[in-house]
């Protein structure tokens, strides 16, 4: 009986990871400082999907649940490095250096600038920006974040404006 349940759980997990597994590397990369290995966080996200599968009862879309677990894991995952930092530097917003510009053309530079701009957002705002860039509407963002759709709309609007301003600043620079 237990074996059947385990096999079913494995099948569901592998099916979900097959369909939405790209969320793990994307979120891990988003929350890993430039130049550091994102593998630990990526593995932790997969582990949390596996462990939390029993709590997923299908009330929300599978992708919504996977975004929720992945972002929660990233936001509470603390790298050992942080312990040696002063607590006032925990908010990345002003402390993340821009990644070195890639050697490619204009599009490559813009992509790198987008990544740099995302890294300059505070961790919670980065989660909202990620959902927006993944194509989630305010309703789905509100469901993942646990805020009202109106509040989600306002925050997404502000974040979009900040990202746009940072990218425009980069291009002018």
């Amino acid at each position, binding site marked *: 009986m237990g074996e059947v349940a385990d096999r079913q759980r494995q099948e569901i997990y592998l099916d979900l990871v*097959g369909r939405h597994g*790209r969320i793990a590397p994307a979120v891990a990369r988003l929350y890993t400082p430039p130049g550091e290995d994102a593998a630990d966080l990526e593995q932790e996200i997969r582990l949390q999907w596996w462990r*939390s599968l029993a*709590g*997923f009862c299908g009330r929300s879309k599978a992708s919504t649940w996977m975004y929720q677990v992945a972002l929660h*894991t990233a936001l509470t995952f603390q790298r050992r490095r*942080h312990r040696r930092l002063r*607590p006032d530097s925990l908010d990345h917003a002003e402390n993340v250096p821009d990644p070195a510009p890639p050697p490619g053309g204009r599009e490559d530079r813009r992509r790198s600038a987008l990544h740099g701009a995302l890294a300059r957002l505070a961790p919670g705002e980065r989660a909202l920006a990620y959902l927006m860039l993944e194509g989630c509407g305010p309703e789905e963002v509100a469901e993942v974040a646990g805020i009202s759709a109106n509040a989600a709309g306002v925050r997404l609007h502000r974040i*979009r404006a900040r990202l746009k301003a940072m990218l425009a600043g980069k291009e002018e620079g």
Partner: protein
Amino acid sequence: MNSEQDDLRELWLQENAGAVSPTKAPLPDAAAGRSETARLRRRVRLDGWMKLLVLLVLGAALPLLAGRMNAAAWAAVGFSLLGAVLGAAQLAWSSGWSGQNTPLPLAQGLASDLDSWRRRRPALALLLGATPALAFQIYVLAYLALNPGSSGKLVNLIFLVAGGPLLWLLASWRQWARLDAWLLQIESALAAFDEQAAARCKRARKRAGRRTTLIAALFLLLLLAGVVLYWLSR
């Protein structure tokens, strides 16, 4: 969806074009959790086993204490047993911590994490801080038990009465600050969804900066006081 968002999204999709979903993803190794919760749980368990190890040390030291069971020796045995009891309690407590994510939206999930770790923080800081203090206290008492003539020295009395408790307080405060740094990270994430959390986070960050400096200074002072007292007694 407006054009500027389309533009950002297009860039994002290009950026992540390489990130494909693995078709044959292996099942994750459940024992290899690398999150702060998993690390904390491992640290608490290791610390619990270290406290239990004192029973072995006590067993090995009993032949030395045989025939010299004075007040200091009984106190050393008492502190060792206290350490073992605390170690066992720590192991039992940490085994009940859930390693899985709360099935809640981000804002509620983070608030629930903050709440449960804030409730655990005082006991956790006191328990983890007790290990070096107990080791120091048992060492001083064992020394006095084996050298009854030294009990009258002022320096030994100061080490006995003030050393252990001060070390406990400072070590516990340091553990508190370490936990606080992590909780501050969660609170700063929560600030994106909750205006009140943003204000609390700002205040907490200022306090945490001052506290880190103070703890380091007090540790240094305690160490210096110990060295000076020891030097004066010679």
